[in-house]
């Protein structure tokens, strides 16, 4: 035996609690040989035995420790009070054993989870997709070569309110026009949807001018503009620009839009609506 193996057994030796009797004889023999050679281990064992004696004394001292009688009284009183409730629950429990209840509750939870999931997906889709003819106009195309109306805006397209012509939303390079999917052939001016929800900008087409055919092949589908959270209600009073950028597809998820997980790492085009001060006000995703 060496010091390391002695250290592994010193507590059992000091506590005098070696369970394996056959092993004990061999162990004790090896230990006594080692202790003759190693003073440090002999002292270690002595310390351990002293500690065991002290702990035994402490244990004996505390052997008689008990709770005061009033604790039992209080407990029984509490038991009496809870007993009627407990008995009221008892028949129900006997009708539906714990295991069966567990299974049933698991199935119920699973069904509820599926229902919530489906409901959430439906809700999300209804929010993104055009539910009515008027709202369908909110899905727009960007015709990249179309000259844009460069008249400065008089209203903030993000702000909630009545109609405004988002001439403000003139592209930085005057390269795009927002047209409805239903009427792609006609260049259009944009107006604000009167029944706009908070935080969302809906561009509606007026369709007053003839269409340009050259841009039809470049037609793109876009979501409606989504206001960025820190945008003030009248922040585009003085004008703005739309800038085409590419962002990770995961960005769509952060706006609550559904994302194809298989293409999660791919990038997606987006139009960012910049305010006069250069800060982004809204974003829409383009496909």
């Amino acid at each position, binding site marked *: 035996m060496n010091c390391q193996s002695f250290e592994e057994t010193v507590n059992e030796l000091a506590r005098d609690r070696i369970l394996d009797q056959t092993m004990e004889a061999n162990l004790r023999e090896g230990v006594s040989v080692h202790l003759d050679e190693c*003073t440090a281990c002999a002292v270690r064992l002595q310390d351990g035995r002293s500690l065991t004696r002290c702990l035994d004394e402490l244990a004996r001292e505390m052997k008689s420790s008990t709770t005061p009688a009033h604790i039992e009284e209080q407990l029984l009183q509490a*038991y009496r009070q809870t007993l009627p409730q407990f008995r009221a629950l008892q028949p129900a429990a006997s009708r539906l054993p714990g295991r069966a209840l567990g299974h049933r509750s698991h199935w119920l939870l699973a069904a509820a989870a599926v229902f919530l999931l489906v409901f959430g997906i439906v809700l999300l889709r209804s929010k993104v997709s055009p539910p009515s003819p008027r709202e369908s106009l909110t899905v727009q195309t960007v015709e990249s070569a179309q000259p844009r109306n460069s008249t400065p805006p008089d209203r903030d397209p993000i702000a909630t309110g009545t109609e405004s012509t988002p001439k403000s939303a003139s592209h930085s390079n005057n390269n795009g026009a927002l047209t409805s999917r239903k009427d792609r052939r006609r260049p259009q001016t944009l107006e604000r949807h009167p029944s706009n929800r908070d935080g969302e900008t809906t561009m509606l087409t007026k369709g007053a001018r003839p269409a340009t055919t050259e841009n039809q092949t470049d037609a793109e589908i876009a979501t409606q503009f989504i206001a960025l959270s820190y945008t003030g209600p009248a922040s585009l009073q003085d004008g703005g620009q739309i800038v085409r950028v590419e962002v990770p597809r995961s960005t769509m998820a952060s706006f609550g839009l559904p994302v194809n997980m298989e293409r999660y790492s791919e990038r997606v085009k987006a139009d960012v609506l910049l305010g006069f001060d250069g800060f982004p006000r809204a974003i829409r995703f383009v496909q």
Partner: protein
Amino acid sequence: MKEQTDGSDSELLQSILAGDEEALSALYRRRQQGIYRFALQMCGSKTVAEDVTQEVFMVLIREGHTFDPSRGSLNGFLLGVARNHVLRRLRRERFYVAMDEDSECDANQTSLPTAGPLDDLARSERIELVRRAVLALPERYREVVVLCDLEEMSYVEAAEILGCAVGTIRSRLHRGRGLLIERLRPTHQEETAAATTKAARCFA
């Protein structure tokens, strides 16, 4: 009544859940001391230990149906509940400052005195010192020392209560005892030095 007191813990529990007050009283009298001692040795406060003991039996009344005999004894279940309550109270109230866990105790490197460090202390002082040293242990070592050394439980029983492997109990006990020896040694040396100084003054 005799039947109640002689019944096994599980039988008493069934009776308690069926509304038998005497069964609760019998089980309480049988197990309260161990739970109270464990709580007292863990936290050092009689008030907290009483609260914990009461709360353990309240849990048994409310949630006794969750006890599964195949997973261990009812006493182990009760002590496990007591342990959770004690640890919660300790974390909330922090009665004692834990010892430094990094002060490694290596028997081969330290020069230990030939005499036992605790041999010369008066019994009551010694018990008090040991009690304080146990209370100053980090919780995970303290609970193992309390269960294995003070409550004289086997490693298997302690492992069942603490929900860990027997090897873990063994290593924690080893570490805890090492910390206790380290903790108690300086006190002994200081007291020996103080006694020597006092004697020298008397002769001066």
